[in-house]
């Protein structure tokens, strides 16, 4: 197969060289550090082989923070390049690669794992379960995501970054116009990560439908659990479409088929249709859980039940259904005719109705409340006006005829950043500040949190607000430079300055994690926010079996009423039983490595090597089929000891009596 070593590593760009050196140094540093501190064993037994949903969630979140950094650096480079007209900081090719990876990483490897991470940590706790339905599958989901993410991320140092945009439109992304292997990374890395996501979807549907604790009917589920359920349903409906689209892309690029090519009767529009058939629901896959987070945070810090709980549920279901019926609004300009465009204009605008219902319900949850301005709540508050701007510009874009002028401009770019940053990133930050103690047993620093908040929100608005006006002035997206005569310069410069503030906010966030990890008070109650749902009805940080005795639910906001009526908070000695838990397994990680190797070979079009590596994947599946490990039991004494260690403390609502 003749490996072309001279093309293997990307050379000739000082930025990439710097990245290569720093990656190598970081890897050496990590290996050296782990060896020096003798942490390899700990890493393997406590983290890599874990099937505990909370630890898997934490690993998702750590990956997401790292990916946020990578995607953010991409964003800053783009902003630097467009800060002045005719700037020569990045070449056009380099810019194309960067906006492609920025998009893919931010959506698929930042937003998704952040939310799936929070789902993993929170949902089993909120429904009063001890783990998800399929713990080992859950670990496999994470490791497949990780495998895909790493494969995608090495592209810029080995083989070349994908450069056809995160939408990867054909025929540009095909071999006819992109003969390098770079776009194979897109097709294959996303495929691997996508399989993991699909399995997460199955896992959470079964978990939520089958593992709710006694008394928790569907209409008593916390809103975050509801949104997770609906999101999982959308995943099941939408991800297979992406699987097919990516597979066809792989066939076109590796085996010369004619699905999306110019020659041989292929149809480039078909790719756009398939991509957005998945891509639009994908937006709601990340937005719905975020709405769930806001619902929890707003209810807790207003000290009130969620206003209009039922209509919230119907609104989510409505959004989910409509999300499958709007994909054409991404290409009104394809000339599908006024009837088609009218239909999709209407369905798209209709999404504003359930979203509006949610917005007003949140506002009226706060009304008559007592709003406590914690950092988590500030994020939820900032969400309301920022997302409203994203929403109304969304309605403007939905109007097919008007979209002819907005399409592919920075107006569109500003719009979706106004939707995704308040709608997802703010939610993730709110969720992290809110649930951090559940994961780590300490709060994030509130003062640093407020710095983080203000810098980020101001930076965000200054970065993206000018883009609306740039778009209306005729600035097309994805152009690596612009002329001085265009008159775009002042707004581009303002936007670039905003991005620095935005980045400073993120830096404060990272520092906050570090500071809190080292110095924050560990002596906090299990319920520091006076919260309402079951995840607070157990220890902080949560013991690995979650609940010594599964709680019983009698109403919505179960924990709030348990506290009010002082019911179900005490644990009697006689109630403690042996707890059955699943065993750890190294297999998911091994599968991750095998998928990674096989995928890497396939990216480089070494089909035989890829097939050989794929045999390893099959061997793993066969091994799993014969694996009858049934888990283990935690003895009563150990449970009693764990429970005694956190109950009965001063200020603790939870009691233990013998």
């Amino acid at each position, binding site marked *: 197969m003749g490996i072309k070593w001279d093309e293997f590593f990307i050379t000739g760009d000082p930025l990439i060289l710097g990245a290569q050196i720093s990656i190598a140094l970081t890897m050496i540093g990590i290996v050296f550090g782990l060896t020096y501190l003798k942490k390899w064993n700990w890493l393997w037994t406590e983290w890599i082989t874990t099937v505990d949903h909370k630890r898997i969630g934490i690993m998702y979140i750590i990956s997401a923070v790292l990916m946020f950094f990578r995607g953010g650096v991409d964003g800053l480079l783009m902003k630097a390049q467009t800060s002045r007209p005719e700037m020569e900081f990045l070449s056009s090719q380099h810019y194309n690669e960067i906006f492609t990876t920025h998009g893919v990483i931010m959506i698929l490897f930042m937003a998704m794992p952040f939310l799936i991470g929070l789902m993993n940590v929170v949902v089993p706790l909120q429904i009063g379960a*001890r*783990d998800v*339905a*399929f713990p080992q599958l859950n670990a496999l989901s994470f490791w497949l995501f990780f495998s895909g993410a790493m494969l995608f991320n090495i592209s810029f140092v080995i083989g070349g970054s994908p450069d056809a945009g995160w939408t990867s439109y054909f025929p540009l992304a095909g071999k006819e116009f992109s003969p390098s292997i770079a776009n194979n990374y897109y097709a294959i890395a996303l495929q691997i990560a996508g399989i993991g996501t*699909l399995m997460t*979807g*199955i*896992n959470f*549907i*079964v978990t939520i*439908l*089958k*593992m709710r604790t006694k008394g928790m009917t569907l209409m008593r589920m916390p809103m975050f659990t509801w949104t997770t359920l609906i999101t999982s349903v959308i995943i*099941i*409906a*939408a*991800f*297979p*479409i992406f*699987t*097919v*689209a990516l*597979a*066809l892309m792989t*066939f076109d690029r590796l*085996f*010369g*088929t*004619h*699905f999306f*090519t110019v*020659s*041989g*009767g*292929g*149809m480039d529009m*078909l790719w756009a249709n*398939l991509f957005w*058939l998945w891509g639009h629901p994908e937006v709601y896959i990340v937005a719905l859980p975020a709405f769930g987070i806001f619902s929890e945070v707003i209810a807790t810090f207003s000290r009130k039940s969620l206003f209009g709980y039922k209509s919230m549920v119907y609104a989510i279901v409505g959004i989910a259904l409509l999300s499958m019926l709007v994909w054409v609004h991404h290409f009104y300009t394809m000339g599908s005719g006024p009837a088609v465009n009218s239909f999709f204009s209407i369905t798209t605008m209709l999404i504003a109705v359930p979203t509006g219902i949610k917005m007003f319900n949140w506002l009226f949850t706060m009304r008559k409340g007592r709003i406590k301005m914690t950092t988590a709540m500030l994020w939820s508050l900032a969400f309301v006006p920022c997302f409203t701007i994203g929403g109304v510009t969304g309605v403007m874009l939905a109007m097919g005829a008007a979209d002819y002028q907005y399409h592919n401009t920075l107006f569109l770019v500003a719009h979706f950043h106004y939707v995704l940053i308040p709608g997802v990133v703010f939610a993730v930050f709110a969720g992290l500040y809110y649930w951090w103690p559940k994961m780590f047993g300490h709060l994030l620093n509130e003062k640093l949190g407020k710095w983080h908040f203000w810098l980020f929100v101001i930076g965000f608005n200054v970065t993206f607000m000018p883009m609306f006006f740039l778009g209306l002035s005729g600035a097309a997206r994805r152009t690596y430079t612009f002329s001085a005569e265009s008159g775009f310069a002042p707004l581009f410069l303002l936007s670039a300055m905003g991005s620095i503030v935005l980045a400073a906010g993120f830096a404060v966030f990272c520092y906050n994690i570090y500071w809190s990890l080292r110095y924050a008070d560990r002596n906090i109650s299990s319920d520091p926010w006076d919260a309402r749902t079951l995840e607070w009805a157990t220890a902080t940080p949560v013991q690995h079996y979650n609940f010594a005795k599964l709680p019983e639910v009698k109403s919505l906001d179960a924990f709030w009423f348990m506290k009010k009526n002082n019911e179900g908070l005490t644990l009697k000695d006689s109630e403690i039983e042996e707890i*059955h*838990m*699943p065993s750890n397994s190294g297999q998911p990680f091994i599968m991750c490595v095998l998928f990674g190797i096989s995928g890497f070979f396939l990216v480089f079009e070494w089909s035989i090597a890829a097939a050989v590596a794929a045999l390893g994947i*099959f061997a793993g599946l*066969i091994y799993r*089929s*014969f694996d*009858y490990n*049934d*888990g283990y039991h935690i003895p009563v004494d150990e449970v009693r000891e764990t429970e005694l260690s956190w109950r009965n403390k001063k200020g603790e609502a939870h009691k233990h009596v013998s």
Partner: protein
Amino acid sequence: MSANVNTSLPLEYQSGQSRMNILGFWIFLGAEIALFATLFGVYAVLSGRYAGGPTHQDIIMIREVMIQTILLLTSSFTCGLAIFEMRRGNKNELIMWLVITLLLGAGFLYMEINEFIHYVHIGASMQTSAFLSSLFVLLGTHGAHVTFGIGWAILVIIQLIKRGLTSVTARKVFIIGLYWHFLDVVWIFIFTFVYLKGLVL
């Protein structure tokens, strides 16, 4: 977690974990429906794009396809018989019907591979035109599922022989039964929308 046992249900549904696995598999089949629906959609869009290459009428061998169909439909029936015997607790009959199912499936697969070889032989490969690309990928995805199903069922049969009929092996047999029937349904759609429609239109 698996403490949730209910012995009044059929063997494969008795443990709580098994009930979750079966539900999970149904949801997986939902995802498979979305996957095949997409492939059918792609085929529907591209099936008229011959790019100067062979058309449906040029390549379809309806007699062979009829035999394939009969093989697969029969295998679905014998798979049903296998589940029936499982419910009656007859391990040996269960294994026998499963083996027959797999043999029929293998026969189907053999004929499909021959069909592909024939197509390529007459100059209709998946590189020839968009129509053929979509045809090969649709049929090939189904064929790959059948192949995967055969390999998987063999593993389950080995476990049946080693461990006998337990709630776990029963659940595995039941799930593979669902999978097999599903592939049969997909084939009925392929037969109708690819072969019959291709001959008529």
